[in-house]
């Protein structure tokens, strides 16, 4: 039964053939075939190894090994076995002990088979080392590490020593080095698997290596604080340790306990010798030399940018432990395997979710309690041997990736989708785990990194949108009395706004218990916000209405201009300092109103008025700010639409990124209270993101190989200019917020008695500190990206080689053109 289930999930080789696939003639078999060819059977067994709780994984391991060894002469079976085994190592890391176990047993039966796997693995390993794909290196070395008993001499240790030597070189060369740390991480995450293997007598070597990695792993890298989920400044207690320093302590503890490694499976353990029926000793297998792998000097890093990683658990500090504590090596070993699985399988979130739900199949049976054990039951179970809650451990790993700083490996929505799928597969088991995670995150809102609390907000709203917007809002009722700028209140209001953006106000209102519905005002329920000039009382009301009518009927520019002039004349006569401001307000507000029907309506309005808007934008900084003010005020109750329009205005270059910052951080800063609004953070992040994306495209164009003068200088000039612009943008943010964080912003000083002791003052200063941290980090990350990318770029002044190689130069023009695309 289990096998039938699996076939329909579309694993490789299991696809249903439709007769239409055959173009030439109908080849439908006349009756169902019952015999599965042997190679297909091996393939299927291998691909689904350990997946079923109904079978023993040990039987899978032995069964496959035996079939393959018995049919060694069959090239198809042999080829499939070698290929699929290594593919699984690289794509489904939780299965590595089972794959390695299969290869171990196969090798003991047929050493040639083992050698074939080894040589293919080594060839791949060499390739990945050369290109600097360190995750693949880690996984292949882990696999090779479990095969330690088949090697002559020290086996895998010399390779680990060599990697360590490179790490030392890198670390000595620069204190900012991150690649060395990555190499240390690879060594750390290999040692337990070598010690897990049936090989014996390597304790001393492992300890010696551990002693060496200690210095590097225990010295905190300067960037750790910057990528921490919690800034140590805000919450020293919650700030996590780096993954490698944590692992170092855990490894030492495990070494002292004789490498018990109690969560990792040893599927080779009860293999029996075919002849003697004694437990199989892998010490006596045919030994082969460890394959030759050379580690280049120096090593380089591949496509994935490296940053220190910090261990995060959203189930820390519960009254009952449901996940391994950070003193236990299981926390790191399980997390590492899960995280790689999640990030490697981004192309099939359903499969990822399935693996997460089936997590208990891939570790020892004593590791987890039964699936879907309620939290309350865990309390009763709490005893000496504490098994963990599989759902919590799985969900924890997903959150650790969703909350990775400075950036997650994949788009955030991938992690959203994994959690959604988990909930779909096992709603009763997963939903309560998510509930507790949400509670932890909500309670951490004040001190969590601001970028992460916004990711939390975004996920929360998106997740609820997939499940009928149901949430136990009642538990946060008490917080509704908090001031609007309190992080929790800001979260609640922000979440409701985001929910509305994915749905509509009335619907969301209907999902809320009392007294929440009052948070969704009547104005929010209006599809078309009021046009302020409709009121006779509004200044310029007559002209405003006229302007709106003209825009609606797509009148000529002259007609529009005459109304604009009328507004400006009236303003002047009333002594308004900058008459452009009321005229811009009337014009932009009218555009918003006429375009309020949908995004494409407002876009076509903007498109038609592009020249006029561009002219306003270039005329005065205050008029440019007024464009933003008018948009934000018209859509004040639906901020999602407002920031979307701002985004499009940036694309049209009607607004400059700096003008958006000026608007938010100076014009509308409201003594810093604006910093509490999630949509403002979203708008500023998006604006800065546009600038940094463009910057990165130009850097990529500058760094491409085969670029020569004069193109080189042309691109370089653009780069220098844009880089300066980007830096001044970051400087502007820094300068504006630093004073808010210090409480010395002019408006702040004027509040109350100016002593900065109003209850809200402390909250505002905290918002300021949290904003600063985010944008300082962004600035640092961009600078390091640029310097890394340019380190190996062709130096200025390089001429094309005399005859060949001219083609490269023309490419440069194309690429810079591409970089101009938004």
């Amino acid at each position, binding site marked *: 039964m289990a096998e039938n289930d699996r076939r329909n999930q579309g694993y490789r080789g299991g696809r249903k053939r439709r007769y239409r696939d055959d173009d030439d003639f109908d080849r439908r078999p006349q009756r169902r075939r019952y015999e599965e060819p042997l190679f297909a059977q091996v393939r299927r067994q291998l691909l689904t190894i350990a997946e079923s709780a109904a079978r023993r994984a040990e039987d899978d391991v032995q069964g496959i090994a035996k079939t393959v060894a018995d049919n060694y002469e069959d090239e198809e079976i042999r080829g499939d076995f070698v290929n699929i085994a290594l*593919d699984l190592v690289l*794509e489904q890391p939780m299965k590595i002990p089972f794959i390695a176990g299969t290869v171990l047993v196969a090798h003991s039966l047929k050493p040639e088979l083992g050698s074939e796997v080894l040589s293919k693995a080594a060839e791949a390993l060499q390739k990945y080392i050369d290109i600097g794909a360190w995750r693949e290196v880690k996984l292949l070395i882990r696999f090779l590490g479990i095969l330690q008993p088949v090697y002559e001499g020290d086996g895998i240790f010399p390779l680990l020593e060599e990697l360590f030597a490179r790490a030392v070189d890198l670390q000595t060369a620069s204190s900012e080095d991150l690649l060395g740390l990555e190499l240390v991480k690879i060594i750390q995450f290999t040692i337990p698997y070598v010690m897990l293997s049936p090989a014996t007598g390597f304790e001393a070597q492992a300890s010696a290596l551990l002693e060496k990695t200690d210095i590097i792993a225990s010295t905190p890298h300067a960037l750790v604080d910057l990528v921490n989920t919690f800034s140590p400044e805000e919450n020293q207690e919650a700030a996590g340790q780096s993954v490698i320093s944590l692992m170092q302590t855990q490894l030492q503890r495990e070494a002292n306990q004789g490498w018990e490694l109690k969560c990792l499976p040893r599927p080779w353990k009860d293999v029996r010798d075919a002849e003697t029926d004694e437990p199989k000793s892998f010490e006596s297998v045919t030994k082969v030399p460890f394959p030759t792998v050379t580690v280049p000097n120096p090593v380089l890093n591949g496509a994935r940018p490296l940053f220190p990683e910090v261990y995060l658990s959203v189930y820390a500090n519960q009254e009952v432990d449901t996940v391994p504590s950070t003193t236990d090596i299981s926390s790191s070993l399980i997390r590492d395997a899960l995280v790689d699985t999640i990030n490697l399988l981004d192309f099939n979130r359903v499969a990822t979710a399935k693996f997460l739900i089936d997590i208990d199949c891939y570790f020892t049976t004593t590791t987890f309690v039964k699936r879907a054990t309620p939290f309350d039951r865990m309390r009763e179970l709490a005893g000496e041997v504490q098994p963990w809650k599989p759902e919590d451990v799985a969900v924890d790993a997903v959150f650790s990736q969703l909350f990775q700083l400075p950036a997650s490996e994949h788009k955030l929505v991938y992690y959203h989708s994994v959690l959604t799928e988990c909930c779909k597969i096992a709603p009763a088991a997963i939903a309560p785990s998510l509930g507790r995670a949400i509670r932890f995150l909500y309670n951490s809102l004040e001190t969590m990194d601001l970028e992460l609390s916004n990711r939390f907000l975004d996920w929360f709203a998106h997740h609820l949108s997939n499940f009928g917007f149901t949430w136990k809002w009642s538990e946060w009722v008490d917080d509704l009395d908090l001031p609007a700028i309190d992080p929790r209140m800001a979260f609640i209001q922000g979440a409701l706004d985001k929910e509305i953006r994915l749905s509509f106000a009335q619907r969301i209102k209907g999902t809320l218990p009392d007294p929440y519905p009052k948070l969704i005002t009547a104005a929010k329920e209006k599809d078309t916000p009021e046009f302020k000039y409709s009121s006779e009382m509004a200044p310029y009301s007559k002209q405003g209405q006229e302007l709106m009518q003209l825009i609606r009927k797509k009148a000529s520019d002259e007609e529009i201009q005459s109304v604009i002039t009328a507004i400006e004349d009236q303003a002047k006569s009333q002594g308004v300092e900058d008459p452009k401001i009321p005229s811009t307000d009337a014009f932009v507000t009218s555009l918003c109103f006429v375009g309020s029907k949908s995004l494409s309506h407002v876009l076509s309005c903007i498109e038609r008025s592009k020249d006029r808007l561009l002219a306003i934008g270039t005329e005065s900084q205050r008029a440019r700010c007024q464009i933003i003010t008018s948009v934000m005020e018209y859509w004040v109750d639906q901020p999602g639409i407002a920031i979307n329009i701002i985004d499009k205005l940036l694309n049209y270059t009607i607004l400059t990124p700096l003008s958006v910052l000026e608007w938010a951080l100076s014009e509308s800063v409201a003594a810093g209270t604006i910093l509490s609004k999630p949509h403002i953070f979203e708008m500023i992040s998006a604006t800065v993101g546009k600038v940094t994306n463009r910057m990165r495209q130009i850097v990529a164009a500058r760094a491409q190989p085969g670029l020569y003068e004069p193109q080189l200088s042309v691109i370089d000039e653009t780069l220098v200019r844009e880089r300066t612009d980007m830096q001044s943008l970051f400087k502007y943010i820094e300068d504006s917020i630093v004073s808010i964080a210090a409480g010395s912003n002019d408006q702040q000083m004027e509040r109350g008695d100016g002593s900065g002791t109003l209850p809200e003052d402390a909250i505002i200063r905290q918002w300021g500190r949290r904003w600063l941290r985010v944008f300082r980090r962004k600035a640092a990350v961009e600078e390091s990206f640029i310097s890394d990318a340019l380190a190996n770029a062709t130096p200025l002044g390089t001429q094309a080689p005399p005859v060949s190689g001219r083609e490269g130069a023309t490419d440069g023009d194309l690429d810079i053109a591409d970089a101009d695309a938004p």
Partner: protein
Amino acid sequence: MSLLARNTVDRLDRPSAYYVSKNKRRRFNDRDEDEPQQEEKPDEKLKNATTLYVGNLSFYTTEEQIHELFAKCGEIKRLVMGLDRFNKTPCGFCFVEYYTHQDALDCLKYIGGTKLDERIIRTDLDPGFEEGRQFGRGKSGGQVRDEYREEYDPGRGGYGRAYDEQRQREEDEYGAGR
């Protein structure tokens, strides 16, 4: 030779069976003619596709909602709502165009099959929007699938229109016969 020439689990960023079979059918017809035409592989047209067809939307889902969800996979270049050929009202599908192929693939992987406006939506890689394709091709102006649908779907105009008409007629006749 594998080492991930093929993945160990299926990929969600492939063209749908619908797209592939639609192209196959066309190829099959071509073959009946004397001159076998140089056939284009379906994958070839989608190699750099940045557009997605999005289906099973509610008629009431707005551009803003679509934008809100789909922008999670990258900046949206263009959004074309599918309209009823006659009424020019939304009829439950749209085209979303991104700036990059990768964003479109990510959308297939992360958004296709999830909910928007509380309906599971479907996404399919598309060779690109062309004028005219924004209109429903069904007899009554909407999408073909909404003509004969026998289930009641409040988000998509109730029963299928042709089906509904027939039901209505039968009911009337039954009444008249009495």
